[in-house]
């Protein structure tokens, strides 16, 4: 959906954060795993579910005012 990058409404802004946030989370989790053996990715991966869930929650409560589909 090419329109999402162009739309400036609050909801679409939050939505566009999803991809980067997941990447950052995965990176951080693996990095933590490198330094603290007991917090390996095999054990911390559900944090990704938390992040996706949180973003979805914010997305659904944020306003879609000014949503613009071109």
């Amino acid at each position, binding site marked *: 959906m090419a329109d999402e990058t162009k739309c400036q409404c609050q*909801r679409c802004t939050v939505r566009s954060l999803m991809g980067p946030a997941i990447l950052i989370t995965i990176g951080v989790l693996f990095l933590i795993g490198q330094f603290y053996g007991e917090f390996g*990715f095999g*054990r911390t991966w559900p944090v*990704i*579910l938390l992040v996706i869930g949180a973003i*979805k929650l*914010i997305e659904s409560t944020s306003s879609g005012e000014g949503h613009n*589909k071109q």
Partner: protein
Amino acid sequence: MSNGRRRSPSLFSGIILVLFGVILLLHYFRGDFPLWDIFWRWWPALLILWGVVKLVERMTYRPAAAGAGAAAPRTVRGSEILLVLGLFALIGTIAGIEWVRRHAPDAEIPGILGANSYTYDIEVAPRPVPPNAQVTIRTTNGDITVRAENTTQLQVTAKKSVRAWDDKEAQRAAAPVNVVIEQTAGGFDVHPEGQSDNERVGVDIEARVPLLASLTLRNDHGDVKTTGLMGSLHVNNQRGDVEISDCAGVNVEMNRGDLKVSDAKGDVKITGNGDDVDVANAAGGMTLNGDFSGTIRAEKIAKGVHLVSQRADLTVSRLPGHLESELGDFKLYDATGNVSLRTSSKDITLENVTGKLAIENRAGNVELRFLQPPKDDITVSNESSGITVTLPANSSFEIQADSHSGEIESDFSGDALKLTKDAQGNSHLEGKVGTHGPKITLKTTYGSIVLRKAG
């Protein structure tokens, strides 16, 4: 409006993702969080949550407040169903992997998929005990294995196991746990010590006791196995399988799991709930009181079987043959002595039963096969199902059979046997075959009665 009909996402997918994330993290960071049990028990609550979220969203919906781009009614969406199914599949996979890991510790599973199990031996000094000592062995999470033998000592070897992500963490959790033999007023008490409240560390206990010891085994979660004991035996196992071979007599209380008892020289008493029960070769009687959802098998029980559950009440006074009872089926082969059975919704088959017979059933066929001419009275009453009785050709009996709104069919005939059918469709068979035969009383509704000659 030039706005696209872009729907605002429902709260539900966010809530459920966060919920699953939290539960999984708890599972990984608290070793005792039983993932699968929780889902097995609580999955209907998810449907409720789903419905409530939808309902609330629907009721609080205001077109103006929702933003210009929102489409009106929000219903359950395909993507949400996929999400829920996907998360369930995820939980199932994790639980499956952990099950395999627990039951086949040698299986190679990449470490990324779950914690490993670490096991350490516990040394316990043997203790001299009198030959008829009272010994209690208990653990809360682990297996108990006891062998009775010609010894004057109580020998205990134990293993503690803990699930952890690395050896260091495992050792830290397992270090305080020990197994002790405590001398009490009544005898000796073997149990783990130093377990923290969450019982993350499982303790398996293996013991050797004198042949004539009186043994009490208690376990919350794990299997219990004993062999060779000639003293009294009492087993209380909340969850797990119980296997007893070669005992004097046994009293088992259980809540969940399978039970197997073989070669008992005395009575076998079972109470509680569980799955399969298999009792073979008892010189005493077998009493089972409770609801077992699997197959109940009994074989060669000298002093008979008494079964009481919510759905059935059975007494067999001597069982040289065997019986098998499961959800919709009951089979009994070769029983001498009297048999009385009251149940419903089971297909009942009895073969070669000599002795007095009384059966009460409902919504299930009853089939009786006699290999010898019957000598004692037979009473069968049934509802909404048929009765079939097969007798040797040389049998003598006195019969009275009634089928309300059903047929009666008989291979036996003669002047002394009268079959009638009235205008309402009720059939009646009455009369005698041979002389001095026992009474056979058969009664059913909406089912046919068939009397067959064997051969």
